[in-house]
């Protein structure tokens, strides 16, 4: 990939596609000034907060919809509407209604991820084994035991799928939210680079961020999934 990049940089103009070494130099420059870390951590905090929000509420609501017909009836139209609402509409409306602040930014991202988590949690709730349910009832398992040892293990593969698809969706939308209305973060820096026509700066911010998200996937999400599947 590096070789391909270097080759492409050689045939195009350095303004359009700088090679790996100037980009690396820019990364060091931004790191030395501290700007890289401030913006990276701002973005990562937004990713973490909106992801946690969306997964918590999405799983709870989705599970409820899978188990209770009435909840499904009431929430399903909302779910369909949210699924089909463009991310941009949600973001702009959030900024208009709540102002250009952190609550609006994180809320808008969470709202974009919410329906996906709901759909998967609902599938998971519908796939619960009724025989184990009945066993838990016969043995009078308390609610906490039932959730932890009966419900969650069956829901886990669905939540893992929601995590995987959710994380990649969330970080993409966080950048847009930052571009549209935050004074820091990777998205904000990319917007600056766009206005200055500075591809070098753009790549200097985009690449470390992609690298971090790859690490999260490889070192957190995948081991977690393997752990869940151990008993199989």
């Amino acid at each position, binding site marked *: 990939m590096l070789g391909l990049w270097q080759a492409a940089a050689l045939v195009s103009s350095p303004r359009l596609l700088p090679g790996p070494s100037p980009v690396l130099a820019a990364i060091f420059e931004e790191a030395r000034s501290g700007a890289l870390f401030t913006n990276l951590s701002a973005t990562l905090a937004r990713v973490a907060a909106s992801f946690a929000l969306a997964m918590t509420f999405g799983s709870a609501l989705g599970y409820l919809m899978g188990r209770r017909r009435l909840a499904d009836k009431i929430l399903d139209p909302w779910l369909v509407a949210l699924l089909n609402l463009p991310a941009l509409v949600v973001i702009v409306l959030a900024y208009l209604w709540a102002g250009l602040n952190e609550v609006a930014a994180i809320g808008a991202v969470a709202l974009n991820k919410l329906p996906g988590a709901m759909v998967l949690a609902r599938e998971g709730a519908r796939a619960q084994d009724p*025989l*184990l349910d*009945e*066993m838990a*009832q*016969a*043995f*009078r*398992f308390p609610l906490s*035991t039932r959730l932890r*040892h*009966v419900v969650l*293990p069956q829901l886990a593969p669905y939540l893992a799928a929601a995590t995987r698809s959710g994380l990649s969706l969330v970080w993409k939308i966080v950048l847009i939210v930052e571009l549209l209305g935050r004074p820091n973060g990777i998205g904000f820096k990319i917007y600056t680079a766009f206005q200055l026509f500075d591809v070098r700066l753009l790549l200097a911010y985009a690449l470390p961020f992609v690298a971090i998200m790859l690490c999260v996937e490889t070192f957190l999400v995948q081991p977690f999934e393997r752990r869940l599947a151990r*008993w*199989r």
Partner: protein
Amino acid sequence: MLLDVDIASKEFPGADGRKTQVIGDLRFALARGEAGALVGPSGCGKTTLLRIIAGLDQDFSGRVSLPQGSRLGMAFQEPRLLPWRSVFDNLKIAAPLASAAEIEALLKDFDLAAHRDEFPGRLSLGLARRAALARALAIRPTLLLLDEPLVSLDAALALELRERIARLIDETHVTTLIVTHDLNEAIALADRIFILAPRPTRIAATLHIETPRAKMTQARARDYEQEARATISRARGS
């Protein structure tokens, strides 16, 4: 009486929307320490009856009474162990008040010590049934409910498990209710046999087994079987 069952009627909605009565006027009781067996052909509503007694189905008219604070130990036909937890954890989760030593002892009693850390998916049906039975006992049940405990085991394994259950009833004196389609199984395990007649399910005849479980011989069992068959045909005739 420890268990007192008095079901006036249990209905299921039929395909045409009309209700079909599946259980009608069914009454029996078990004394503390007694082992009863409900015997009937498959599809005669035995499982529905057991679900009502276990409190899993409350949509019926009548009542099932057990003393306050009773604990129900149930061994289902399918072992229904949590596949993502080890055998030991399955017992521990069902019986959080039991100490680790108590659970280890129970596993040893059921010859499961070697399988303590295995996931249930790796166990044979015979082993999984034993684990499910151990789980039902781990909660120190007031009433032990066994749903077809020997079904679909091969003859040797079924006999082995049957003797184990007989010993267990004699040693712990736990009040037990066994649901089975197999009359011989009931004769070997129960003190009292309730023979069910279908559509709607009711008790057609009751049979006392006077011979202690440990003294039951094949010849004695055959006599009881003949007596039971005669009772059943008399009940049909009247």
